[in-house]
C-alpha cells in the first residue's frame, strides 16, 4: 500500500516536472512547477516529515513561486510562444541530461548499504524534535542564515532600484 502511494506520487512529480520543462507558456511552467512542489510535499508527509512538508508548501508554493509569477506578470511575458532553441541544441541537451542520469543511476545502483536503525524514532520529523536539533546543534548556522537573508534583501533592493545614487 505504501509502495503504491510512493510510486503514484513519484510518477505524478516526474510527470508534472516534465510538463514544466516542455510547455511553451512560462505561466503554465510556473503552475506545473507548483503542482510538482505539492507532490514533493506529499512525499515529505509520506516520510513523516510533517513540519518540513508545511514549511515546503509555505516557502515554495506560497512565497517563491508567487514571486516568479509576479515577475512574469510584471514583465508581461505570458505569451504562448517564446523563442525556442534549435532542434539540434535540444537533441544535444537531451543526450547530455540522459548521460548524466545514466551516470547517477550507474554510480548509485546497489551502492547504498543503509544500516537499519534498530529502534527508529518515527517522531524525528515533528516540530519538537526538529526544534531541539535546530536550536541546540545548529544555532550558529541559523544566525548566519539570518544574516544571509538580510544581505539578500539589501542586495535585491539595490539591484532593483532604477537610478542608484551612492
Amino acid at each position: 500500500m505504501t509502495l503504491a502511494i510512493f510510486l503514484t506520487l513519484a510518477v505524478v512529480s516526474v510527470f508534472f516536472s516534465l510538463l514544466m520543462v516542455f510547455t511553451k507558456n512560462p505561466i503554465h511552467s510556473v503552475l506545473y512547477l507548483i503542482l510538482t512542489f505539492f507532490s514533493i510535499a506529499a512525499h515529505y508527509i509520506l516520510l513523516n516529515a510533517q513540519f518540513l512538508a508545511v514549511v515546503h508548501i509555505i516557502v515554495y508554493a506560497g512565497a517563491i513561486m508567487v514571486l516568479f509569477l509576479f515577475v512574469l506578470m510584471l514583465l508581461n511575458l505570458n505569451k504562448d510562444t517564446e523563442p525556442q532553441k534549435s532542434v539540434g541544441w535540444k537533441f544535444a541537451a537531451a543526450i547530455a541530461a540522459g548521460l548524466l542520469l545514466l551516470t547517477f543511476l550507474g554510480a548509485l545502483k546497489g551502492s547504498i548499504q543503509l544500516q537499519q536503525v534498530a529502534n527508529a524514532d518515527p517522531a524525528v520529523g515533528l516540530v519538537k524534535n526538529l526544534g531541539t536539533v535546530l536550536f541546540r546543534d545548529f544555532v550558529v548556522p541559523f544566525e548566519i542564515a539570518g544574516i544571509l537573508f538580510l544581505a539578500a534583501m539589501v542586495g535585491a533592493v539595490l539591484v532593483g532600484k532604477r537610478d542608484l545614487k551612492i
Partner: protein
Amino acid sequence: MLEIIKSVPIDYYVYLSSILFCIGVFGVLIRRNAIVVLMCIELMLNAVNLLLAAFSTYLSDGQGQIMVFFIMVVAAAEAAVGLGILVMIYRNTKSTDISFLDKIRN
C-alpha cells in the same frame, strides 16, 4: 518503525531524486527564458531536498531535515536576488532571453 522504511527501499528515493535532478538540468539546457531557467534550478534544489529528507527519515536523524531548511533559505535568497537581476536586465534589453546575454563574451 515507520511503514515506509519497511516497504519502500531507499534506492527508490535515490532514483526519483536523480530523475528529477536530470529533468532540471535538461530544462536549464533547453529553455531560453531566463525565468524558466531559474525555476529549473529550483527543481534541482528540490530533488536534493527530497533525498536529504528521505535519508533523514531512514536513518532516524533530524540533522538531514535541518539541512533541508538551510537549502530552502539559500533557495529563497537566490530567487529574490536572481529575479531582481532579471528585472534589471529586462529594463535594459527589453527581453529575458538568455541568448541576448552572450555579449559579455566579446
